[in-house]
Protein backbone atom coordinates (compact mmCIF):
# COMPACT_ATOMS: atom_id res chain seq x y z
CA UNK A 1 0.00 0.00 0.00
CA UNK A 2 2.75 2.40 0.98
CA UNK A 3 4.87 1.73 -2.10
CA UNK A 4 1.76 2.08 -4.21
CA UNK A 5 1.00 5.52 -2.82
CA UNK A 6 4.62 6.61 -3.23
CA UNK A 7 4.46 5.44 -6.84
CA UNK A 8 1.30 7.45 -7.34
CA UNK A 9 2.91 10.56 -5.85
CA UNK A 10 5.89 10.21 -8.16
CA UNK A 11 3.56 9.70 -11.09
CA UNK A 12 1.60 12.82 -10.11
CA UNK A 13 4.75 14.92 -9.86
CA UNK A 14 5.92 13.73 -13.27
CA UNK A 15 2.50 14.43 -14.72
CA UNK A 16 2.48 17.89 -13.16
CA UNK A 17 5.87 18.64 -14.72
CA UNK A 18 4.70 17.42 -18.12
CA UNK A 19 1.44 19.36 -18.00
CA UNK A 20 3.23 22.54 -16.90
CA UNK A 21 5.53 22.14 -19.89
CA UNK A 22 2.48 21.63 -22.11
CA UNK A 23 0.77 24.70 -20.76
CA UNK A 24 3.76 27.01 -20.84
CA UNK A 25 5.59 25.94 -24.00
CA UNK A 26 3.52 23.67 -26.22
CA UNK A 27 0.16 25.43 -26.16
CA UNK A 28 0.00 28.37 -28.62
CA UNK A 29 -0.11 31.94 -27.41
CA UNK A 30 -3.61 33.34 -27.38
CA UNK A 31 -4.17 36.00 -30.06
CA UNK A 32 -5.80 38.83 -28.11
CA UNK A 33 -4.82 38.06 -24.51
CA UNK A 34 -1.25 36.96 -25.10
CA UNK A 35 0.76 34.89 -22.67
CA UNK A 36 -1.35 35.86 -19.67
CA UNK A 37 -4.01 33.51 -21.00
CA UNK A 38 -1.79 30.59 -19.95
CA UNK A 39 -3.03 31.08 -16.39
CA UNK A 40 -6.15 29.40 -17.75
CA UNK A 41 -4.34 26.04 -17.52
CA UNK A 42 -4.08 26.44 -13.75
CA UNK A 43 -7.14 28.51 -13.01
CA UNK A 44 -9.82 26.23 -14.45
CA UNK A 45 -8.35 22.89 -13.26
CA UNK A 46 -8.09 24.36 -9.74
CA UNK A 47 -11.74 25.35 -9.89
CA UNK A 48 -12.57 21.84 -11.01
CA UNK A 49 -10.65 20.24 -8.14
CA UNK A 50 -12.25 22.61 -5.63
CA UNK A 51 -15.70 21.79 -6.94
CA UNK A 52 -15.07 18.05 -6.78
CA UNK A 53 -13.67 18.38 -3.25
CA UNK A 54 -16.76 20.22 -2.03
CA UNK A 55 -18.96 17.59 -3.62
CA UNK A 56 -16.96 14.84 -1.91
CA UNK A 57 -17.35 16.76 1.34
CA UNK A 58 -21.12 16.79 0.83
CA UNK A 59 -21.26 13.04 0.16
CA UNK A 60 -18.94 12.23 3.06
CA UNK A 61 -21.06 14.41 5.39
CA UNK A 62 -24.18 12.47 4.43
CA UNK A 63 -22.30 9.20 4.81
CA UNK A 64 -21.13 10.23 8.28
CA UNK A 65 -24.63 11.10 9.49
CA UNK A 66 -25.89 7.83 8.09
CA UNK A 67 -23.19 5.35 9.15
CA UNK A 68 -21.42 7.34 11.87
CA UNK A 69 -18.07 6.12 10.64
CA UNK A 70 -15.05 8.20 11.62
CA UNK A 71 -13.51 7.49 8.22
CA UNK A 72 -16.33 9.31 6.46
CA UNK A 73 -15.70 12.27 8.74
CA UNK A 74 -11.98 12.13 8.04
CA UNK A 75 -12.74 12.24 4.31
CA UNK A 76 -15.09 15.18 4.83
CA UNK A 77 -12.43 17.09 6.76
CA UNK A 78 -9.71 16.30 4.22
CA UNK A 79 -11.78 17.24 1.17
CA UNK A 80 -13.00 20.51 2.73
CA UNK A 81 -9.46 21.60 3.54
CA UNK A 82 -8.07 20.73 0.12
CA UNK A 83 -11.14 22.31 -1.50
CA UNK A 84 -10.54 25.57 0.32
CA UNK A 85 -6.89 25.55 -0.77
CA UNK A 86 -7.81 25.11 -4.44
CA UNK A 87 -10.67 27.59 -4.15
CA UNK A 88 -8.12 30.09 -2.80
CA UNK A 89 -5.90 29.42 -5.82
CA UNK A 90 -8.88 30.12 -8.09
CA UNK A 91 -9.64 33.37 -6.27
CA UNK A 92 -6.00 34.47 -6.56
CA UNK A 93 -5.33 33.44 -10.17
CA UNK A 94 -8.67 34.87 -11.30
CA UNK A 95 -7.91 38.52 -10.53
CA UNK A 96 -4.35 38.12 -11.86
CA UNK A 97 -5.89 37.08 -15.15
CA UNK A 98 -8.74 39.58 -15.04
CA UNK A 99 -6.56 42.64 -14.45
CA UNK A 100 -4.77 42.66 -17.84
CA UNK A 101 -7.69 41.19 -19.80
CA UNK A 102 -10.78 42.90 -18.39
CA UNK A 103 -8.92 45.90 -16.98
CA UNK A 104 -10.19 45.28 -13.45
CA UNK A 105 -9.19 42.97 -10.61
CA UNK A 106 -12.65 41.98 -9.65
CA UNK A 107 -16.23 42.15 -10.86
CA UNK A 108 -19.30 40.96 -9.01
CA UNK A 109 -20.22 38.61 -11.79
CA UNK A 110 -22.17 35.40 -11.13
CA UNK A 111 -19.30 32.96 -11.33
CA UNK A 112 -16.82 35.06 -9.39
CA UNK A 113 -19.26 35.89 -6.65
CA UNK A 114 -20.45 32.32 -6.34
CA UNK A 115 -16.86 31.15 -5.97
CA UNK A 116 -16.25 33.75 -3.28
CA UNK A 117 -19.39 32.77 -1.37
CA UNK A 118 -18.43 29.11 -1.72
CA UNK A 119 -15.04 29.93 -0.24
CA UNK A 120 -16.68 31.82 2.65
CA UNK A 121 -19.02 28.90 3.38
CA UNK A 122 -16.22 26.35 3.53
CA UNK A 123 -13.94 28.60 5.56
CA UNK A 124 -16.77 28.85 8.07
CA UNK A 125 -17.00 25.05 7.93
CA UNK A 126 -13.30 24.75 8.80
CA UNK A 127 -13.72 27.27 11.62
CA UNK A 128 -16.62 25.29 13.03
CA UNK A 129 -14.46 22.17 12.97
CA UNK A 130 -11.77 24.02 14.88
CA UNK A 131 -14.09 25.50 17.47
CA UNK A 132 -16.40 22.55 18.09
CA UNK A 133 -15.67 20.71 21.28
CA UNK A 134 -14.76 17.05 21.53
CA UNK A 135 -16.88 14.32 20.03
CA UNK A 136 -19.59 16.62 18.72
CA UNK A 137 -17.36 18.03 16.00
CA UNK A 138 -18.24 15.40 13.42
CA UNK A 139 -22.01 15.76 13.65
CA UNK A 140 -21.96 19.55 13.67
CA UNK A 141 -19.52 19.68 10.77
CA UNK A 142 -21.53 17.16 8.77
CA UNK A 143 -24.69 19.22 9.25
CA UNK A 144 -22.95 22.38 8.09
CA UNK A 145 -21.37 20.54 5.15
CA UNK A 146 -24.81 19.56 3.91
CA UNK A 147 -26.15 23.09 4.41
CA UNK A 148 -23.23 24.54 2.53
CA UNK A 149 -23.59 22.37 -0.51
CA UNK A 150 -27.37 22.80 -0.68
CA UNK A 151 -26.80 26.54 -0.63
CA UNK A 152 -24.52 26.61 -3.69
CA UNK A 153 -27.15 26.39 -6.47
CA UNK A 154 -29.31 28.97 -4.68
CA UNK A 155 -26.34 31.31 -4.43
CA UNK A 156 -25.60 30.90 -8.11
CA UNK A 157 -29.22 31.48 -9.13
CA UNK A 158 -29.63 34.56 -6.98
CA UNK A 159 -26.40 36.16 -8.09
CA UNK A 160 -27.01 35.44 -11.74
CA UNK A 161 -30.37 37.19 -11.48
CA UNK A 162 -28.79 40.01 -9.50
CA UNK A 163 -26.28 40.57 -12.27
CA UNK A 164 -28.50 40.10 -15.29
CA UNK A 165 -30.73 42.77 -13.85
CA UNK A 166 -27.84 45.19 -13.58
CA UNK A 167 -25.46 44.27 -16.39
CA UNK A 168 -21.91 45.39 -15.79
CA UNK A 169 -19.85 46.85 -18.64
CA UNK A 170 -17.03 44.39 -18.28
CA UNK A 171 -18.16 40.87 -18.97
CA UNK A 172 -15.95 38.25 -20.47
CA UNK A 173 -14.82 34.71 -20.04
CA UNK A 174 -16.55 32.36 -22.42
CA UNK A 175 -13.26 30.53 -22.84
CA UNK A 176 -15.10 27.35 -23.72
CA UNK A 177 -16.46 28.82 -26.92
CA UNK A 178 -14.20 27.07 -29.41
CA UNK A 179 -10.86 26.16 -27.89
CA UNK A 180 -7.91 25.54 -30.20
CA UNK A 181 -7.10 21.77 -30.30
CA UNK A 182 -3.54 22.29 -29.01
CA UNK A 183 -4.88 24.43 -26.21
CA UNK A 184 -7.47 21.82 -25.39
CA UNK A 185 -4.69 19.24 -25.37
CA UNK A 186 -2.62 21.21 -22.86
CA UNK A 187 -5.72 21.96 -20.84
CA UNK A 188 -6.69 18.31 -20.56
CA UNK A 189 -3.19 17.37 -19.36
CA UNK A 190 -3.39 20.05 -16.70
CA UNK A 191 -6.85 18.96 -15.71
CA UNK A 192 -5.58 15.41 -15.23
CA UNK A 193 -2.48 16.55 -13.34
CA UNK A 194 -4.43 18.80 -10.99
CA UNK A 195 -6.97 16.09 -10.35
CA UNK A 196 -4.12 13.77 -9.36
CA UNK A 197 -2.62 16.45 -7.10
CA UNK A 198 -6.02 16.84 -5.49
CA UNK A 199 -6.29 13.10 -4.95
CA UNK A 200 -2.80 12.94 -3.42
CA UNK A 201 -3.52 15.82 -1.04
CA UNK A 202 -6.93 14.55 0.03
CA UNK A 203 -5.57 11.02 0.53
CA UNK A 204 -2.63 12.29 2.61
CA UNK A 205 -4.83 14.52 4.73
CA UNK A 206 -7.32 11.67 5.11
CA UNK A 207 -4.59 9.36 6.36
CA UNK A 208 -3.37 12.02 8.77
CA UNK A 209 -6.88 12.46 10.16
CA UNK A 210 -7.17 8.69 10.60
CA UNK A 211 -3.90 8.65 12.52
CA UNK A 212 -5.07 11.56 14.66
CA UNK A 213 -8.26 9.67 15.45
CA UNK A 214 -6.26 6.55 16.33
CA UNK A 215 -3.95 8.50 18.63
CA UNK A 216 -6.92 10.11 20.33
CA UNK A 217 -8.61 6.75 20.84
CA UNK A 218 -5.37 5.37 22.29
CA UNK A 219 -5.12 8.30 24.71
CA UNK A 220 -8.71 7.80 25.81
CA UNK A 221 -8.06 4.12 26.36
CA UNK A 222 -4.92 4.80 28.40
CA UNK A 223 -6.76 7.31 30.55
CA UNK A 224 -9.51 4.81 31.20
CA UNK A 225 -7.06 2.07 32.16
CA UNK A 226 -5.06 4.47 34.32
CA UNK A 227 -8.16 5.27 36.29
CA UNK A 228 -9.06 1.56 36.59
CA UNK A 229 -5.67 0.79 38.06
Amino acid at each position, binding site marked *: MKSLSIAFIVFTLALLGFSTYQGLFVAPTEQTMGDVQRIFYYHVPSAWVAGVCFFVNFLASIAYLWKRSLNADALAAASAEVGVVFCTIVLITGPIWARPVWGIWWTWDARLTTTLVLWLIYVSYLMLRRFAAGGQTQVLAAALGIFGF*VDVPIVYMSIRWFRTQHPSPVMGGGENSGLDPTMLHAFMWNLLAFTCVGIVLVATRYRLQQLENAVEAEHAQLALEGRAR
Partner: protein
Amino acid sequence: MSHVDVTKATLMKDLRMEWRSKDAINSMLFFSLLVVVIFSFAFNPTAEQSRLIAGGLIWVAFLFAAVVALNQTWARELRNQVLDAYRVSPAPPNALLLAKVLGNFLFVVILEALMAPLFVVFYQLRSVGPVWQLVVIALLGTWALVVNGTFFAALSIRTRSREIMLPLILFPISIPALLAMVDATTSVLTGESTPDFWIKLLLVYDVIFTAVCLLLFESVLNAE
Protein backbone atom coordinates in the same frame (compact mmCIF):
# COMPACT_ATOMS: atom_id res chain seq x y z
CA MET B 1 -48.10 14.35 23.98
CA SER B 2 -48.41 14.86 20.28
CA HIS B 3 -46.06 16.84 18.07
CA VAL B 4 -48.33 19.89 18.12
CA ASP B 5 -48.74 19.80 21.90
CA VAL B 6 -44.98 19.78 22.48
CA THR B 7 -44.47 22.62 20.04
CA LYS B 8 -47.23 24.62 21.68
CA ALA B 9 -46.02 23.97 25.22
CA THR B 10 -42.43 24.94 24.41
CA LEU B 11 -43.49 27.97 22.44
CA MET B 12 -45.79 29.18 25.22
CA LYS B 13 -43.04 28.68 27.78
CA ASP B 14 -40.61 30.75 25.70
CA LEU B 15 -43.17 33.46 25.08
CA ARG B 16 -44.02 33.62 28.77
CA MET B 17 -40.35 33.87 29.72
CA GLU B 18 -39.82 36.57 27.15
CA TRP B 19 -42.94 38.42 28.28
CA ARG B 20 -41.66 38.48 31.84
CA SER B 21 -38.04 39.36 31.17
CA LYS B 22 -38.26 41.09 27.74
CA ASP B 23 -34.53 40.38 27.40
CA ALA B 24 -34.42 39.45 23.73
CA ILE B 25 -36.82 42.05 22.42
CA ASN B 26 -35.27 44.90 24.41
CA SER B 27 -31.73 44.11 23.37
CA MET B 28 -32.76 43.68 19.73
CA LEU B 29 -34.72 46.92 19.74
CA PHE B 30 -31.94 48.94 21.26
CA PHE B 31 -29.35 47.32 19.01
CA SER B 32 -31.23 48.08 15.80
CA LEU B 33 -31.98 51.59 17.02
CA LEU B 34 -28.24 52.09 17.39
CA VAL B 35 -27.66 50.75 13.89
CA VAL B 36 -30.25 53.16 12.47
CA VAL B 37 -28.61 56.12 14.18
CA ILE B 38 -25.05 55.14 13.34
CA PHE B 39 -25.81 54.42 9.69
CA SER B 40 -27.59 57.73 9.46
CA PHE B 41 -24.45 59.49 10.68
CA ALA B 42 -22.19 57.39 8.50
CA PHE B 43 -24.05 57.99 5.23
CA ASN B 44 -26.12 61.13 5.90
CA PRO B 45 -28.42 60.34 2.96
CA THR B 46 -31.00 62.53 1.24
CA ALA B 47 -34.55 61.19 0.81
CA GLU B 48 -33.73 60.06 -2.73
CA GLN B 49 -30.50 58.30 -1.73
CA SER B 50 -32.04 56.67 1.30
CA ARG B 51 -34.68 55.06 -0.88
CA LEU B 52 -31.84 53.34 -2.73
CA ILE B 53 -29.87 52.20 0.29
CA ALA B 54 -32.72 51.60 2.75
CA GLY B 55 -33.28 48.00 1.63
CA GLY B 56 -29.73 47.07 2.52
CA LEU B 57 -29.73 49.11 5.68
CA ILE B 58 -32.95 47.73 7.10
CA TRP B 59 -31.99 44.14 6.54
CA VAL B 60 -28.45 44.43 7.79
CA ALA B 61 -29.84 46.02 10.95
CA PHE B 62 -32.40 43.24 11.41
CA LEU B 63 -29.86 40.53 10.62
CA PHE B 64 -27.45 41.77 13.26
CA ALA B 65 -30.26 42.31 15.75
CA ALA B 66 -31.67 38.83 15.12
CA VAL B 67 -28.30 37.30 16.00
CA VAL B 68 -28.65 38.83 19.47
CA ALA B 69 -31.93 37.00 20.04
CA LEU B 70 -30.82 33.80 18.31
CA ASN B 71 -27.81 33.49 20.58
CA GLN B 72 -30.10 33.50 23.61
CA THR B 73 -32.42 30.83 22.21
CA TRP B 74 -30.59 27.79 23.43
CA ALA B 75 -28.42 29.36 26.10
CA ARG B 76 -31.29 29.38 28.57
CA GLU B 77 -31.89 25.66 27.96
CA LEU B 78 -28.34 24.84 29.02
CA ARG B 79 -28.95 26.05 32.55
CA ASN B 80 -30.14 23.23 34.81
CA GLN B 81 -29.48 20.74 31.97
CA VAL B 82 -32.87 21.39 30.37
CA LEU B 83 -31.54 20.39 26.98
CA ASP B 84 -30.27 17.06 28.34
CA ALA B 85 -33.64 16.45 29.93
CA TYR B 86 -35.23 17.13 26.60
CA ARG B 87 -32.96 14.61 24.90
CA VAL B 88 -33.94 11.78 27.22
CA SER B 89 -37.62 12.63 27.02
CA PRO B 90 -39.68 10.95 24.27
CA ALA B 91 -40.75 14.33 22.87
CA PRO B 92 -40.04 14.71 19.14
CA PRO B 93 -36.90 16.85 18.56
CA ASN B 94 -38.44 18.66 15.59
CA ALA B 95 -41.24 19.92 17.81
CA LEU B 96 -38.61 21.66 19.92
CA LEU B 97 -36.92 23.17 16.87
CA LEU B 98 -40.23 24.33 15.44
CA ALA B 99 -41.23 25.95 18.73
CA LYS B 100 -37.91 27.77 18.94
CA VAL B 101 -38.13 28.90 15.31
CA LEU B 102 -41.70 30.14 15.77
CA GLY B 103 -40.70 31.99 18.94
CA ASN B 104 -37.75 33.70 17.29
CA PHE B 105 -39.87 34.44 14.22
CA LEU B 106 -42.40 36.21 16.42
CA PHE B 107 -39.73 38.21 18.24
CA VAL B 108 -38.08 39.38 15.03
CA VAL B 109 -41.40 40.21 13.35
CA ILE B 110 -42.41 42.27 16.39
CA LEU B 111 -39.04 43.99 16.23
CA GLU B 112 -39.56 44.78 12.55
CA ALA B 113 -43.05 46.12 13.17
CA LEU B 114 -41.72 48.41 15.88
CA MET B 115 -38.66 49.52 13.93
CA ALA B 116 -40.34 50.14 10.58
CA PRO B 117 -41.92 53.47 11.60
CA LEU B 118 -38.54 54.62 12.93
CA PHE B 119 -36.86 53.83 9.62
CA VAL B 120 -39.60 55.73 7.78
CA VAL B 121 -39.12 58.76 10.01
CA PHE B 122 -35.33 58.83 10.16
CA TYR B 123 -34.74 58.11 6.48
CA GLN B 124 -37.78 59.92 5.09
CA LEU B 125 -38.86 56.78 3.28
CA ARG B 126 -41.82 56.71 0.98
CA SER B 127 -42.48 53.59 -1.06
CA VAL B 128 -43.13 53.99 -4.78
CA GLY B 129 -44.25 50.37 -5.22
CA PRO B 130 -47.08 48.65 -3.33
CA VAL B 131 -46.43 48.42 0.42
CA TRP B 132 -48.13 45.03 0.93
CA GLN B 133 -45.30 43.45 -1.03
CA LEU B 134 -42.90 44.69 1.65
CA VAL B 135 -44.90 42.77 4.23
CA VAL B 136 -44.61 39.57 2.19
CA ILE B 137 -40.87 40.10 1.74
CA ALA B 138 -40.44 40.78 5.45
CA LEU B 139 -42.30 37.63 6.49
CA LEU B 140 -40.50 35.34 4.04
CA GLY B 141 -37.12 36.95 4.70
CA THR B 142 -37.50 36.77 8.45
CA TRP B 143 -38.39 33.10 8.23
CA ALA B 144 -35.29 32.48 6.11
CA LEU B 145 -33.05 34.16 8.69
CA VAL B 146 -34.72 32.66 11.71
CA VAL B 147 -35.04 29.02 10.61
CA ASN B 148 -31.36 28.78 9.73
CA GLY B 149 -30.37 31.00 12.61
CA THR B 150 -32.14 28.85 15.18
CA PHE B 151 -30.59 25.72 13.74
CA PHE B 152 -27.10 27.19 13.66
CA ALA B 153 -27.53 28.54 17.17
CA ALA B 154 -28.04 24.92 18.21
CA LEU B 155 -24.76 24.11 16.43
CA SER B 156 -22.78 26.99 17.84
CA ILE B 157 -23.98 26.42 21.41
CA ARG B 158 -21.81 23.27 21.35
CA THR B 159 -18.63 25.11 20.42
CA ARG B 160 -16.11 27.16 22.29
CA SER B 161 -16.77 30.92 21.99
CA ARG B 162 -20.45 30.37 21.14
CA GLU B 163 -21.56 33.93 20.58
CA ILE B 164 -18.93 34.56 17.92
CA MET B 165 -19.52 31.28 16.13
CA LEU B 166 -23.18 31.88 15.22
CA PRO B 167 -22.71 34.82 12.82
CA LEU B 168 -19.62 33.17 11.35
CA ILE B 169 -21.58 30.15 10.16
CA LEU B 170 -24.96 31.86 9.64
CA PHE B 171 -23.92 34.78 7.42
CA PRO B 172 -22.25 32.88 4.53
CA ILE B 173 -25.20 30.51 4.18
CA SER B 174 -27.66 33.41 4.39
CA ILE B 175 -26.07 35.45 1.60
CA PRO B 176 -28.62 34.47 -1.10
CA ALA B 177 -31.53 35.15 1.26
CA LEU B 178 -30.08 38.49 2.26
CA LEU B 179 -29.47 39.40 -1.36
CA ALA B 180 -33.08 38.50 -2.18
CA MET B 181 -34.47 40.52 0.74
CA VAL B 182 -32.38 43.57 0.01
CA ASP B 183 -33.02 43.60 -3.72
CA ALA B 184 -36.73 42.89 -3.36
CA THR B 185 -37.09 45.69 -0.80
CA THR B 186 -35.15 48.13 -2.94
CA SER B 187 -37.14 47.32 -6.05
CA VAL B 188 -40.42 47.90 -4.18
CA LEU B 189 -39.20 51.13 -2.58
CA THR B 190 -37.94 52.58 -5.83
CA GLY B 191 -40.73 51.02 -7.91
CA GLU B 192 -38.25 50.47 -10.73
CA SER B 193 -38.64 46.72 -11.14
CA THR B 194 -40.81 43.92 -9.81
CA PRO B 195 -39.65 41.88 -6.83
CA ASP B 196 -41.39 38.74 -8.16
CA PHE B 197 -38.24 36.74 -8.81
CA TRP B 198 -36.81 37.57 -5.39
CA ILE B 199 -40.03 36.63 -3.62
CA LYS B 200 -40.02 33.29 -5.41
CA LEU B 201 -36.36 32.77 -4.53
CA LEU B 202 -37.09 33.50 -0.87
CA LEU B 203 -39.95 31.03 -0.98
CA VAL B 204 -37.68 28.34 -2.47
CA TYR B 205 -34.96 29.15 0.06
CA ASP B 206 -37.46 28.91 2.93
CA VAL B 207 -38.87 25.59 1.80
CA ILE B 208 -35.48 23.98 1.14
CA PHE B 209 -33.82 25.09 4.34
CA THR B 210 -36.81 24.40 6.55
CA ALA B 211 -36.73 20.85 5.19
CA VAL B 212 -32.96 20.52 5.73
CA CYS B 213 -33.24 21.88 9.28
CA LEU B 214 -36.03 19.48 10.18
CA LEU B 215 -34.09 16.58 8.65
CA LEU B 216 -30.85 17.26 10.48
CA PHE B 217 -31.99 18.65 13.81
CA GLU B 218 -32.35 15.31 15.55
CA SER B 219 -28.71 14.38 14.85
CA VAL B 220 -27.50 17.76 16.04
CA LEU B 221 -29.57 17.68 19.22
CA ASN B 222 -28.27 14.23 20.08
CA ALA B 223 -24.65 14.92 19.14
CA GLU B 224 -22.30 13.76 21.86
